[in-house]
């Protein structure tokens, strides 16, 4: 690097640059949090949904599936599974049947464990997935397959 660019100039660039962008980031985070109520589907965040989220976490579903594209890539995306598997009318029956049928036991096929959830828990988990599908994701995923 040119000799005219001194170490103290480099240090100032580091200190000043990072402080500046940290402040901007904090500001944008505050703005994001302010805008979230219009986007994050919180009006449908019921007690059952919160319980469903807890079940989602306690059973480490994200260890195989992705949710809004985040998680593991071993099993299907579930952010839009509500729409993919029946929507308002058909999702819950499909979901309960699916969960209770695990593991499918097809040799060589990726296998999902049986989590032994009660009917009430399955309702809550389905409610959580329905709520997640209502978050404004800027139209992601590109199609119904997730």
């Amino acid at each position, binding site marked *: 690097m040119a000799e005219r660019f001194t170490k103290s100039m480099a240090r100032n660039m580091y200190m000043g640059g990072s402080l500046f962008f940290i402040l901007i980031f904090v500001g944008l985070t505050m703005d994001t949090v302010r805008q979230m109520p219009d986007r994050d589907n919180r009006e449908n965040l019921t007690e059952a949904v919160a319980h469903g989220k807890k079940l989602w976490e306690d059973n480490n579903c994200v*260890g195989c599936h992705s949710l809004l594209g985040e998680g593991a890539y071993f099993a299907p995306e579930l952010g839009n599974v509500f729409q993919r598997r029946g929507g308002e009318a058909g999702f819950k029956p499909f979901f309960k049947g699916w969960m209770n049928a695990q593991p499918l036991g097809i040799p060589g096929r990726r296998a999902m464990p049986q989590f032994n959830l009660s009917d009430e828990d399955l309702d809550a988990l389905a409610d959580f997935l329905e709520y997640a599908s209502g978050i404004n994701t800027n139209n992601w995923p590109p199609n119904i397959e997730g």
Partner: protein
Amino acid sequence: MKYESQAVAMPYFIFALVLFVGQIVFGLVLGTQYVIGDFLFPEIPFNVARMVHTNLLIVWLLFGFMGAAYYMIPEEAETELHSPKLAWALFWIFAAAGTLTIIGYLAVPYATLAEITGNDLLPTMGREFLEMPTITKVGVVVVALGFLFNIGMTILKGRKTVVNLVLITGLIGLAVFFLFSFYNPENLALDKYFWWYVVHLWVEGVWELIMASILAYVLIKVTGVDREVIEKWLYVIIAMALISGILGTGHHFFWIGAPEYWLWLGSIFSAIEPIPFFMMTLFAFNMVNRRRREHPNRAATLWALGCAVMAFLGAGVWGFLHTLAPVNYYTHGSQITAAHGHMAFYGAYVMIVITIISYAMPVMRGRPNGNSNQAQVVEMWGFWLMTISMVFITLFLTGAGVLQVWLQRLPESGEALSFMATQDKIALFYWLRLISGIGFMAGLVVYLVSFFVGGEEPQLEKA
């Protein structure tokens, strides 16, 4: 070794490498499950193996960073470590907590682990990479505080070099951002938003400070280039890392509910994230070319150069490949992400930890000029086997990802293949990835064998 207390780094490095082996074993399990879906089911379901694989990675890198700090900071500060006893105590606490957590993952269903560790009181579990029980997280915070106190006191009483200041800034940042792992709102969008405060601001933020300072330290040692020059580079690199990386967090906010302006901000700032990595490559090669001495530990120099190159490729190039919002719309959460993740973590963080181990371990074992030539040759075989294998893992996952996007993401609804049907179509790439993974394991074994190769210590040559 200039100060006796630096030796406390040794158990940290050894344990890190032990966990590294565990990580790769479970990586092979996962790679097998990708092609033989019910392999080890139901004993070790995919999610359990994945949790072990990723958490072992994180924990062994933390062991590596701590070992690096215990080794570098006293020497840079020109004083003994504040308390070697504390460092030893924290080593055992962290090793025990980590081992118990892994055993917990493997021994009982995750839901049971959540229940017995009190996840109902403060739910923090079940989120990617932060799966460890809440009490383990508390343990990590305690260990981090003790560790920061120990190295902080050492820095305060000694010489304050730029390397030390940057390193401790990175480590403090690591501890501070980890605190966001305790924030887990019921609101999924907010949960995800602040989850990235841990994950992104670690690996694309403060960890880069740690990486750059370790690289700078090793380059000072092996090249003998004037400290002033190296420190100037270090400042510019970390300046660029934070200037690009902080708002670069926005590339994770595209599709999780955050406002649309993140599409622009995330794309623009993450597009400049490769620059600090490119500068690290320039930096490493420049310093080695301008070296004032021929350090006989050529293996350490190779790791330093390789780390800079692979970090640029994995984090820089493979990150840029899918970071622009219009591209990421199709690639988000596909095997492209997995390809990037593998090479970036290996290139940037695995290799930097091995770089400092390669430099420091021989010194701690009483060989200030490095291991014997025979041992170094074996170590370099390990380097090439692991690195080339990782290149292939990345290329095959990229191939799988491109096909996945082509079949599953690009067509309209109705035309697109389902997830599972797509996975069947790309199975060949997963087989090739698994074979590359076995190559990686072989490289790791060769690397570990190099620690046990004897021979005479090389002599210092004049440049």
